[in-house]
């Protein structure tokens, strides 16, 4: 679908509403459960499917070209750092279980707080370098590439 929501599994927690990049998962005011209000603006990005704590959201391929009777389900686990998929085709011949890592390190821990690192010197400010460069560019002692270092010369601009 576009996404759709199973009536008996949804408890109206709103995680999908909070995450949907397209602003199309809304809570039905009568039923107090989520649903897709605008299927033709759904990218099948699975953000809401992954975010739903009750696995209440699923996807049914776009009606204008996808026949019924298929399934692509997913469980994303930040703690374990993996995502697990299961693909079942309409005729049942394809039934794949696929697992992939989503991170190699504990979630969000390895990102430094740049407010606390040593402030850039004036020399660094006046250079072309970004944070932690040139080290991060080359992982050796080499400097950033410039026209001069790479033997390049500016030629006159052309309108021809």
């Amino acid at each position: 679908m576009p996404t759709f929501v199973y009536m008996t599994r949804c408890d109206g927690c709103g995680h999908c509403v909070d995450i949907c990049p397209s602003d199309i998962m809304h809570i039905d005011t009568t039923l107090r459960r989520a649903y897709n209000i605008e299927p033709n603006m759904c990218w099948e990005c699975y953000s809401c499917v992954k975010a739903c704590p009750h696995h209440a959201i699923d996807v049914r391929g776009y009606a204008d070209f996808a026949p019924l009777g298929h399934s692509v389900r997913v469980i994303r686990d930040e703690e374990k750092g993996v995502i697990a998929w299961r693909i079942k085709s309409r005729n049942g011949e394809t039934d794949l279980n696929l697992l992939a890592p989503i991170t190699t390190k504990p979630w969000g821990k390895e990102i430094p707080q740049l407010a606390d690192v040593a402030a850039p010197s004036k020399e660094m400010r006046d250079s072309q370098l970004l944070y932690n460069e040139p080290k991060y560019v080359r992982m050796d002692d080499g400097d950033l590439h410039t026209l001069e270092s790479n033997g390049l010369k500016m030629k006159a601009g052309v309108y021809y």
Partner: protein
Amino acid sequence: MAYKTIVEDNIDILVAGAGLGGTGAAWEARYWGQDKKIVIAEKANIDRSGAVAQGLYAINCYMGTRFGENNPEDHVRYARMDLMGMVREDLLFDMARHVDSAVHQFEEWGMPIMRNPKTGSYLREGRWQIMIHGESYKPMVAEAAKKSADKVYNRICVTHLLMDDSKENRVAGAVGFNVRTGDYHVFKSKTVIVGAGGASNMFKPRSVGEGAGRVWYAPWSSGSAYGLMIQAGAKMTQMENRIVLARFKDGYGPVGAYFLHLKTYTQNCNGEEYESKWFPALTEMVGKEYLDTEGQHLSHKPIPTCLRNHAFISEVNAGRGPIHMVTMEAFQDPHLEEIGWHNFLGMTVGQAVLWAATDVNPKYENPELTTSEPYVMGSHATGCGAWCSGPEDLSPEEYFWGYNRMTTVEGLFGAGDAVGGTPHAFSSGSFTEGRLAAKAACKYIDDGKAAGIRVSDEQIARRKAEIYKPMEHYKIYRNEIVAGSVNPNYINPRQGLDRLQKMMDEYCGGVTVNYMTNDKLLHIGLKKMKVMEEDLEKIAAENIHELLRAWELKHRHLTAEAVFHHTLFRKETRWPGYYYRGDAMKLDDENWHVLTVSRRDPKTGEYTMEKAPLYHIVEEK
């Protein structure tokens, strides 16, 4: 209307739209401005927003200088070749010399980047692409942005930039509304970095109904990068350079890994190779410099994306469609088969859903490909966007006005899709451009360039009235009719979008006219666009969600108008396979070896067009 006005004052750096470009900007800004106030305003939730919301299976821009693979100038040559010469080489070189440092950071943060077991270097998909398990790419860079930002405002649809009332052509922040509460948000800021996106859903899609959501670029990419900057009077460049993608049919699943890593290839309905037979005639059209099929083996030049599209389109028009991707060989290897599926799950789940629904097993059948409707953006194999200053050590006078990635509006910077002339930046390059813009924005403030900014209450009140007008309009005219969506006094956002898409399609070279347009068609189209502008004043929004769609439509409309003007201006067919000017079917280097630059006067809405020179900084090899 009872919506509150919420003012966030004294911001130094406002990031408007936090996809890969915006998150890079917010993250890096903290280093150069440790005591500065950094605020993000994002239409969705930065954990899953922008084009990378569902993840990526490859980083398509990585030099590998560290592994001795490529230098920045190699990438400039590649992008220049692919875009038929029309790139900003200073900006490209600058992005390319920094991009690896972004990727190395990602790996340190925990991004699973695949390694070549033999060499220890990153696993290459192609010369520029490395393979990753990037399902969590966006949440990861969002974490970084959150670490650096003072405040993140999710669910704010930024509609306009604020302009300084004391100095002409200087930015002063932005305004928008919260798509949940409806509240009016005012961000007063010394600088703004536009990280908003390019435009999907501007040309009529091939799909009908629900499938309109399965566009190649995200449906929430509403051209706001361009809409915001054009409204503010920033100069734009290369807006004619829309992109058409050859992709798996209907699902628009990516083909890069298939071609490059799985070594699949295409053939026509008779099982024949078809590309090369179109090349002699194509060489006639574009000239030997751009397609030298005889020398191709010696020069190792890749064939530009648009020209491969041209061969595809021509073969289908000759009655030998569909074009198939030959997967049956590669998929016999279980490892490659798994990669083929992972590739979709990592970045275009919808394609896996479609193959499951249609029982496509690429091991036993070769799936169909198609060419998509056009898209307007600036970070894939195309370079639409704002005319920005380059860095001082690389840029000639015409390309340099003090601050890297600053547009022609003072204090207004861009990153990712927002910056023109920098194709092939992709995710990592967009993040890098954000970092570059952030450093420059801090310098701009430290140099005292943002002193004395004044935003009048009148401007704030005027924008507020403008923002909510579609809801007011609805309220006034809704009860003239019994029920339904047909009203003589308004159209709703969906109706408006349908009209825009039909107009772009038929007059500006969409898919139903085989990407063809000409001077006459463009003039008719522009006339209709002006009338549509009047109707956009009468657009009606029943609720806040529709108000969001109304403003997305207005941004798409502004983008579309620029595309029309640029397409009209460049009287040649520079990119056969992206679009054709039927009245000028040849590439014309004598008159058009230039970048096109436009400006829309914010007061009158009039467009002026000019040619800017091309500087070839990097020599041919």
